[in-house]
């Protein structure tokens, strides 16, 4: 029988792991143990816990999505190289060639921006010319952008400590930094779905929103000198920020991704690009999965926000504009998911809704910072 050829018998999760997987996990564990033994004296119990848990978490992530293994290794090499070259002095950024043009955080982030733009270009070229080569080049460029972006973030984190031990902080504290985070999270989720569904035709659409974010980032950098590392305001000097902000941006990123997929869905269902886009069911499924992940993490982020608020401002919820809008976003997607899971909402309505959801999300993300003031006034425009 021909059909049987594409069937491989089901195997347990651990049985499917290769030697490379185990090697990767062992290296992660060793790295975290090494860090613990070398720097453990400076850490408190939470930091030690997080360091120890990081190894199994990233091991699981790498096992689940094999590309993460390569990404992690490259990031480790590049950022350690940069730290090595800095050698504890910020001046090196202007003296050493590789730091100046490649690895110092601002150069790396500029590289990321360029690569994202190029990637968009090649994805669109691939879509228009029906060239799989173009799209695959776009994919490679997107991966390189992610590598450069994360390297830039990691190096920026280190640079902030070089400015002063009390200035140092995780680079998710202002609008400039979170825009980089947003671009990279959206790109990573897209790349995951690209591999999962073996289709590159969604790239052009998703890369549009990433390009828009990067364009904004560049404008912001040039017009406001946003790339400078600023000391943290006291309200943000907290452990909670390290998880609250990234969890929120997983939400924003996947919601944006879902909205762009819904654009593709709407185009296809209205008869445009019919033969160049994946099947409607696939688009629908990507949309659902992206929103599901986003919703889960957005829930976590909101809860963490409430707990942090209880600690910092004395109450779980104070109806600050950002909180209110986060609630609106949350309710919006909760309703979307509920309609889908319970009432079987599909098709163009769901797609339009996901697209409108992006407007709500954008307002919660940017509009609140621009038009309303409140307790969350850290990333003002």
């Amino acid at each position, binding site marked *: *029988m021909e*059909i*049987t050829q*594409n*069937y491989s*018998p*089901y195997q347990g999760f651990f049985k499917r792991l290769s030697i490379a997987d185990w090697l990767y996990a062992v290296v992660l564990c060793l790295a975290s143990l090494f860090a613990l033994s070398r720097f453990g004296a400076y850490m408190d119990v939470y930091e030690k816990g997080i360091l120890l848990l990081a190894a199994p978490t990233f091991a699981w992530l790498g096992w689940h999505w094999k590309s993460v293994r390569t990404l992690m290794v490259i990031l480790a090499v590049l950022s350690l190289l940069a730290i090595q070259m800095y050698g504890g002095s910020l001046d090196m950024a202007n003296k050493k060639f590789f730091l100046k043009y490649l690895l110092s955080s601002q150069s790396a982030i500029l590289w990321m921006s360029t690569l994202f733009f190029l990637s968009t270009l090649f994805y669109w070229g691939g879509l228009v010319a029906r060239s799989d080569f173009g799209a695959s080049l776009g994919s490679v460029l997107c991966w390189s952008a992610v590598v450069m972006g994360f390297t830039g973030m990691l190096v920026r984190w280190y640079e902030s400590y070089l400015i002063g031990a009390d200035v140092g902080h995780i680079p998710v504290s202002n609008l400039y930094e979170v825009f980089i985070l947003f671009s990279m999270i959206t790109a990573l989720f897209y790349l995951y779905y690209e591999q999962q569904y073996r289709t590159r035709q969604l790239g052009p659409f998703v890369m549009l929103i990433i390009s828009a974010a990067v364009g904004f980032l560049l404008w912001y950098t040039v017009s406001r000198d946003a790339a400078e590392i600023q000391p943290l305001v006291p309200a943000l000097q907290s452990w909670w920020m390290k998880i609250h902000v990234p969890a929120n941006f997983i939400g924003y990123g996947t919601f944006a991704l879902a909205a762009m997929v819904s654009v593709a869905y709407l185009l296809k269902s209205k008869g445009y690009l019919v033969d160049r886009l994946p099947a409607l*069911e*696939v688009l*629908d*499924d990507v949309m*659902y999965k992206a929103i*599901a*992940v986003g*919703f*889960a993490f957005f*829930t*976590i982020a909101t*809860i963490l926000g*409430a*707990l942090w608020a*209880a600690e910092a401002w*004395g*109450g*779980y919820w104070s109806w600050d504009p950002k909180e209110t809008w986060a609630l609106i976003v949350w309710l919006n997607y909760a309703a979307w998911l509920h309609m889908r*899971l319970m009432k*079987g909402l599909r098709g163009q309505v769901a797609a339009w809704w996901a697209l409108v959801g992006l407007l709500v999300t954008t307002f919660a993300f940017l509009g609140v910072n621009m038009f309303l003031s409140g307790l969350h006034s850290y990333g003002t425009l």
Partner: protein
Amino acid sequence: MRAAVQNPELRELAAQRYAKRALPANMQNAEQVQAQLTESARKSLNIFAGDEQQSGFVAISKFLEQIPEAEQGKAADVFMKILNGSMWDLWLVAREKEGLPALELDEKHARFLQLATGAISDAFFYGAPVFLQLTGFEEVKASVLQVTRSPGKNVVYLGCLLLVLGVFAMFYIRERRLWVWIRDDVAGTHALMALSSQRKSLDFEKEFEQLKIHLQQLSTQP
């Protein structure tokens, strides 16, 4: 003074006084000229006091635009002279009403009148009858301490944890049921397979296809 401008009776009084004051005593047909001058002064004050739409110098310039262009310059001069004069009288009338002493017409008072007239004219644009201005303030520095006590904190934490677990379970734990009905047939064994789930998704369809192939594969094995 602004109140006086808005008061038609005082305006009337001021217009009459102005006309009496402005004319030399021994003039011919004084009665008639005085009446004309009173009328002009009243008119200029009324226009200056304005209505809902406009008032002050804007209203006056609007009024003057109606006059033929050639005479506009001259008319404006006369008009302003009458207005300034009757404003002086209006001021005096207002002071009289308040029981204040009359004033000598000198440099200082003339300047005040000029500025006041300008201010009354501009006040129309401001919209409110009173202009409030901060002259100073005293800063009081204080620290506020807020104390909160949340005895149910652990319950809240537990609730949050359960909520998150619930959300993840909702998305990633799928309940599926598989039925295979095998019955013997004359030709061999017949198998009917069914798979049910609470939620329809692409993964579910794929899984069914895979299981179908698996079943077929099993049945062909010896």
